[in-house]
């Protein structure tokens, strides 16, 4: 380490502290049975908070989050696998126009769509059901995986499919027998990415779900945090840690594709 790199290390230390300090409390509070908002090392370590997180209403929230995220990502994956094929392999009227529309849809903030979606579901009478949340999240989750899948398909030469057609394979069959096996991690990337965004989504379930036992973790933690009276910080901290684990693990698997995917297809 030479003299000139000292400011660089100083800068990095500050950034590290800035990133890490707020999170310390979360870990300490999660193993403290009498946690408050003060950061302190608990007198004795306990896992009772994690135990409590798997019971009562928090267990309900965990289940709801899993149901919503798993169904939504699977739906998105199936729909995109099919639709991306036509966008990648066929030419039809208005294709680029539609792709540009999908692209815009991906950039426009979700807040713009929140009222249209709410008004629709309240008219149809589906407010306070997981179905409404799953449908809205599927729609809002479609654009990005669609472009991503199209990118994966585009990178596979068409000659493999042509060979399959010659052997009498139908178009729809070539998707499953020829294209998908070559996409490799592509399917997992799409599924994981949709899972991560759906898992963290707050605004849609906040608006559509008003019953305590229907809420996913995001809205549940928010509601419990804002409750009057004594907030159980230990329980909420352990619940937050559990809540953060799936996206962190998934990120480790797909980090290579994450930024590339988020940027690459904006160019269209």
């Amino acid at each position, binding site marked *: 380490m030479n003299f000139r790199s000292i400011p660089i290390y100083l800068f990095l230390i500050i950034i590290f502290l800035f990133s890490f300090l707020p999170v310390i409390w979360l870990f300490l509070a999660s193993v403290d049975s009498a946690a408050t908002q003060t950061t302190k090392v608990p007198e004795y370590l306990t896992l009772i908070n994690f135990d409590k997180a798997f019971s009562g209403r928090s267990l309900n929230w965990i289940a709801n989050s899993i149901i919503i995220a798993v169904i939504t990502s699977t739906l998105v994956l199936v729909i995109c696998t099919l639709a991306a094929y036509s966008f990648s392999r066929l030419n039809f009227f208005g294709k680029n126009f539609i792709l540009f529309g999908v692209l815009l849809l991906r950039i426009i903030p979700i807040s713009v769509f929140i009222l249209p979606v*709410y008004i629709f579901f309240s008219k149809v009478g589906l407010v306070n059901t997981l179905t409404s949340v799953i449908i809205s999240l599927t729609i809002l989750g479609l654009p990005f995986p669609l472009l991503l899948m199209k990118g994966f398909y585009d990178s596979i030469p068409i000659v493999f499919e042509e060979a399959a057609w010659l052997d009498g394979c139908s178009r729809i069959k070539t998707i499953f027998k020829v294209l998908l096996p070559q996409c490799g991690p592509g399917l997992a990337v799409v599924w994981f990415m949709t899972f991560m965004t759906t898992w963290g989504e707050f605004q849609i379930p906040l608006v559509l779900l008003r019953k305590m036992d229907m809420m996913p973790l995001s809205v549940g933690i928010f509601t419990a945090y804002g409750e009057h009276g004594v907030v159980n910080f230990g329980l909420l901290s352990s619940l937050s840690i559990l809540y953060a684990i799936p996206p962190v693990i998934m990120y480790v698997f797909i980090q290579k594709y994450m930024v590339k995917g988020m940027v690459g297809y904006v160019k269209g």
Partner: protein
Amino acid sequence: MQKSRFMLLTIGPAAIFLFFLLFAVLWSFYISFTDFSLVGRAARDPQFVGFKNYIKLFNDPTFYNSIKISFIFTIVSAFIGQAVLGLLLAIFLKQVNATTKVIVIVAVTLCWIMPDMVAVYVWGAFTSRSGLLNTILNWLKLSAVNWLGEMPLQTVTIANIWRGTAFSMMLFSSAIETIPPHYYEAAVVDGATSWQKFKSITLPLISPSILMDLILITMWTFGYFTLIYGLTGGGPGHLTEVFPVLIYNQAFSHYEIGYGAALSFIMMIIVGCLCGIYFILLRKAERMVY
């Protein structure tokens, strides 16, 4: 014939969902011309009121306040905060040893990858009266501050920088990696300083990435609801009421869905204009580099 049936099969499901969205948007456009509400007579039997919502909107001080707050929040936390910090990190991390690099990247990325609500929860405690931030101030013999009460906008802005810097950092890192090293070697032979290398090689070559980064983070920050709503709910008063929070509060706290729908459309127009400007700039930047 074969082809169109096949297309129907593949694009069909996606089209149904996307048409639903279009339909919902058009419907709420209609709603923005009514006095539709969640409670009272207007909930059962909304009346067509013409441009009343839009006229009300342009005479509403909270509307202008939200635009101002939104732009301050976006410019300071996305442009000045995330983009500049991300760029500095991307450059500096290239020059340190692997261990330091990994530790810093993991810490920064963790803030970005955790769910929104965990970030809200963590920052709520961090900036609370008895939170770690005030504890540190006490150690330094400074008096404690009620962060979310006294300086709410500054606090949420910094929280958003904390949350989002990782994306810019990663985007810039991967852009810098694509620059051929012999450019720098040639510059060193010519006796260029670090600053000259940055200004004349790095910056121009990654300018499309910078623009792309700015497009994405401005849109995300402009539409960022969870962090601010979770920490302050738009308050105290209207001090942190950014546009998405204003829409939510109008529609679901004041139950004025029609008015909220009108606000949504104004937001859509603002976002659309920003997108347009950016895409034009992006085309230009790409033409300059390639």
